[in-house]
């Protein structure tokens, strides 16, 4: 599978002093010594403890709800049901953007009104003096349901006569791509390959369950300290609670992992309602079981590829069908489906393409954002399909892909031209080279296999959302730097990257930068920490603000040195003359000079992503994302053919990240993405039967331990062609996307047969092997 790739153009990246070095992240030591305070760690004097009463039924009318006993319990401060609320909806459209279309009627109510649509749907809220009393009060709530027929399978839900979750039908969203003539393309093929792939519900399983504390201040502002990826939810919270937007302040904390699961509102509205009602601080922290019950899931998808190919390996056309299970409420399902649709055929040139996708409501747990956001599910299908086609043609999987890979300047499935580097061939070649030869195992029961996947994943928002970010950079009179930016830090180093940019531009060391982030009231709004967008969006905003400060400093220094600003530079906390570095002035002194002159040493900058119009829904042709990251991942597995057990022996990720801000952090993203991808492929599944989660805790929902993974080798390429600061692309989501299909391809390579459903459990491995024997 190894062929030498063409020599890469060597980009002449500008020399940077801080960016690109393996510096300790600004947030690392505080976390390492246990000093960082997370959302669940806050307490307030006079604080109440909250619990949520949830539905045990997947589909039912609430015949009677009686909270009198709970209200009467000593120590209970407040019990709220839908009757006590303004007609609040949990708004599930893309937060931070306005004017989007959505099916308002199908948004989730804050608390269930007349009926429930999934197990775990919130029905009532309790706040009490202690957690024990709150738990007792929950037990005292009496409810009587009239069970209604439910539907738990998206295919069933599309049939006529199926129970309707939200009127008028169960179709939450649908998209289509029409490009060229798929029929003609297929007709001209020498060979047609058709496969259907299925993927399950997944749980994010961040180690920190959702938590928050809310209180009213002396301006009647509801303050909410919470672990969230989106502080801009303050508007939706205000709307749901019935107060003006400026009376809710979300103060995001360092987040104990999110991966999309803390993108939608979790505890915020409940906290706001209870604190507003009681006038007292309220804390709400989910248990692990409640977390699994209450937050979104990764969408299950059923994806069918019908692809035509010439004997020479050129793809002539494809028809792709995608069905996702959105669960009981849409949340971000339409957008997840759009991402999946746009990347449905992967990073390949297919001129004749038809894609039809649909997201379907069921009485299952609701699905929404999860790292990869539909792009990951699409990749599971298209990369397995590519291997199956190569197999059908008896071609090497890489040679086959090379014939069809997108190249820089080509247009993708929706006709968007890719302007940044597309290094797929090089990435796959390098990943496979690093994987090396298959290990030799002298045991007949053990089969070894290698596989890889190459994928594309967008970074930055859909351009018709008109995405913006703001950041503020200032220099203090002692030469230290402050960055204020609303970007929440998920733990992936978002804040650190912003600090690094300021340090780079202003010539200080990273430790001279202090950041304030994730506060919807006092840090400039920066948009969501989702969609692999913060380095791109807030990074560019911070770069812009820092350059504005730099310009002021250099202008003043130029006056001082009687030099042109261009001849000066900032480094090591000094301004100096480039041609004569012995002539320098400390930043502290320069800053004082500027202050004395009344110059503006703090700048707020706005960065706007390129805007585009909404795509034509009849064909989805046009520009949709600012750019894509292209990636390869290679995997070697050992499969025990007697027990079906799979062991991942080697793992290599190769990504063009444009510019690696911090190689250790980039490696960490690639390794963490690998772990989640391997979990996706091999063991993770939220099992749902008749709407009930059968994997309710981390004893049943298994994520990889240290013993389940090899060390993933990260190969970092830097084309410098990204649209992020200094040419960076995004890596958060792209790190995950190629991994699960690479594992699936390695397993198929090992056992000689394709397992079409994830996860690849030992049982499925044996079943697939049986199938070959029979076949």
């Amino acid at each position, binding site marked *: 599978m190894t062929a030498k790739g063409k020599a890469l153009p060597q980009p002449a990246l500008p020399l940077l002093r801080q960016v690109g070095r393996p510096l300790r992240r600004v947030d690392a030591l505080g976390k390492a010594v246990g000093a960082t305070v997370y959302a669940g760690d806050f307490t307030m004097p006079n604080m109440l403890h909250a619990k949520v009463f949830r539905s045990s039924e997947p589909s039912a009318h609430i015949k009677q709800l009686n909270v009198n006993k709970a209200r009467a319990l000593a120590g209970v401060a407040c019990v709220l049901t839908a009757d006590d609320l303004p007609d609040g909806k949990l708004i599930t459209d893309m937060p931070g953007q306005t004017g989007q279309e959505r099916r308002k009627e199908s948004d989730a109510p804050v608390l269930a009104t007349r009926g429930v649509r999934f197990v775990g749907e919130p029905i009532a809220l309790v706040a009490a003096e202690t957690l024990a009393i709150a*738990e007792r009060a929950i037990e005292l709530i009496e409810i009587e349901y009239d069970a209604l027929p439910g539907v738990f399978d998206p295919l069933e839900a599309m049939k006529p006569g199926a129970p309707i979750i939200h009127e008028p039908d169960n179709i939450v969203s649908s998209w289509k791509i029409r490009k060229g003539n798929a029929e003609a393309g297929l007709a001209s093929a020498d060979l047609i390959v058709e496969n259907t792939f299925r993927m399950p519900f997944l749980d994010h399983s961040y180690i920190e369950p959702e938590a928050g504390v809310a209180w009213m201040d002396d301006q009647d502002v509801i303050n909410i300290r919470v672990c969230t990826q989106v502080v801009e939810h303050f508007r939706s919270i205000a709307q749901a609670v019935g107060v003006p937007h400026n009376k809710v302040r979300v103060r995001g904390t360092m987040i104990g992992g999110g991966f999309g699961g803390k993108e939608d509102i979790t505890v915020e509205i409940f906290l706001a309602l209870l604190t507003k009602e009681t006038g007292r601080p309220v804390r709400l922290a989910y248990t692990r079981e409640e977390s699994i019950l209450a937050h979104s899931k990764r969408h299950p998808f059923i994806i069918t590829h019908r692809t035509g190919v010439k004997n020479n390996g050129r793809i002539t056309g494809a028809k792709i069908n995608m069905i996702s299970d959105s669960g009981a409420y849409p949340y971000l399902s339409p957008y997840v489906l759009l991402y999946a649709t746009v990347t449905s055929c992967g990073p390949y040139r297919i001129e004749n393409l038809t894609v039809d996708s649909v997201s379907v409501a069921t009485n299952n747990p609701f699905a929404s954002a999860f790292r990869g956001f539909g792009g990951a599910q699409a990749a599971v299908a298209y990369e397995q399909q590519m291997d199956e086609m190569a197999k059908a043609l008896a071609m090497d999987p890489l040679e086959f892909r090379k014939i069809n890979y997108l190249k820089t300047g080509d247009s993708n499935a929706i006709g968007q031209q890719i302007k940044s580097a597309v290094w797929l061939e090089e990435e796959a070649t390098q990943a496979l080279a690093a994987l090396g030869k298959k290990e030799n195992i002298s045991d007949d029961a053990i089969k070894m296999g290698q596989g890889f996947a190459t994928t594309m994943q967008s970074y930055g928002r859909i351009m018709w959302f008109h995405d913006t970010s703001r950041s503020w950079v200032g220099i203090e009179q002692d030469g230290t730097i402050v960055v204020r930016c609303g970007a929440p830090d998920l733990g992936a180093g978002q804040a650190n990257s912003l600090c690094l940019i300021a340090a780079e531009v202003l010539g200080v060391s990273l430790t001279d930068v202090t950041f304030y982030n994730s506060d919807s009231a006092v840090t400039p709004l920066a948009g969501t920490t989702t969609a692999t967008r913060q380095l791109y969006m807030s990074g560019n905003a911070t770069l812009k603000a820092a350059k504005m400060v730099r310009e002021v400093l250099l202008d003043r220094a130029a006056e001082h040195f009687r030099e042109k600003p261009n001849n000066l530079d900032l480094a090591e906390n000094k301004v100096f003359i480039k041609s004569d570095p012995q002539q320098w002035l400390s930043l502290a002194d320069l800053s004082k000079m500027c202050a004395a002159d009344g110059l503006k040493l703090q700048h707020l900058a706005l960065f706007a992503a390129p805007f585009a119009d909404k795509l034509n829904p009849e064909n989805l042709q046009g520009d949709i994302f600012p750019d894509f990251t292209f990636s390869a991942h290679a995997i070697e597995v050992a499969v025990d053919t007697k027990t079906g057990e799979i062991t991942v022996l080697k793992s290599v990720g190769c990504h063009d990240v444009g510019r690696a801000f911090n190689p250790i952090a980039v490696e960490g993203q690639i390794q963490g993405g690998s772990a989640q991808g391997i979990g996706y492929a091999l*063991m993770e599944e939220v099992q749902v039967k008749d709407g009930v989660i059968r994997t309710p805790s981390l004893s049943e929902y298994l994520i990889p331990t240290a013993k389940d993974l090899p060390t993933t080798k990260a190969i970092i390429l830097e084309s410098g062609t990204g649209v992020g600061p200094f040419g960076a692309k995004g890596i958060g989501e792209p790190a995950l996307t190629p991994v699960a299909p690479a594992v699936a391809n390695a397993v198929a390579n090992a056992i000689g047969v394709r397992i079409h459903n994830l996860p690849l*459990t030992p*049982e499925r491995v044996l079943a697939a092997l049986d199938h070959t024997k029979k076949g």
Partner: protein
Amino acid sequence: MLPEFELLMPRTLPEALEMMDESSTVMPLAGGTNLLVDLRGRLSRPQTLMNIGGLVELRGVHVEDGYADVGSAVTIADLKRNVLIAKHGQALQQAATVFANPLIRNRATIGGNLAYGSPAADAAPPLLVLGAKVELLSKDTKRTVPLKEFITGVRKTVRHPKELITAIRWPIPPEGSVSVFRKLGLRKADAISVLSIAVMLHRKDTGDCDQVRIALGAVAPTPIRVAAAEDFLDGGPLTPEVIAQAAQLASEATQAIGDIRGSAAYRKRVITALVRRLLTNLAKGTKEKKH
């Protein structure tokens, strides 16, 4: 949060037995790795718990009179590193090595693992092949029950409410005996067993094997010995054909059920494969390859 309960804190074994005698609703608490989880999930609501994890009388491991004797509050971590266990209970030591995870192993006890009565208790199959007995003490009585008879159903044992498991003991296997434990979980650490297997046999000087014992976990309401397969193998040479047939018998002897971790059919099939593999390796003195 945990529900309300009283917690007794005896300092000695006699004091503990006295406390149990006074009330029939005292639930002994050792490592708590199962019991506290069940309490929190409201799966069990005992009024009174009694902390026995700290009782030194229950924490010894000795060999005497041809028996290995392990106190019921000996932790799984202790079993893992104890040289006597490594010598006289290989399969048990191997089970301790792959039991849950290191943090759990530092709390969970051998007595607790059996007392809980889980079909998937990882200590049970090794102790079954070792022919272990469970010592039960109350203030006035003492009895010893073969482990085979101790667990009677899912979460059911013959322990009387006033009795405490004080020790587990088994006859030291004769020279030439070897035993092995294998568990199949859905991940490589900290996984509830989809199935577990312990096999013990005695290698005679002639090269043949006898005293073959096979025990299985997670494939019936209790961990089980599979007499049908054992009897079939008894005394004869362990040829590949004989092993294959015995493995088949072992699988047939189970009442595997399907659950979220795997179907009944899968379990039955893998029992055959693994019993065969373990017997073959033990007979040959080879080890299963690790990946």
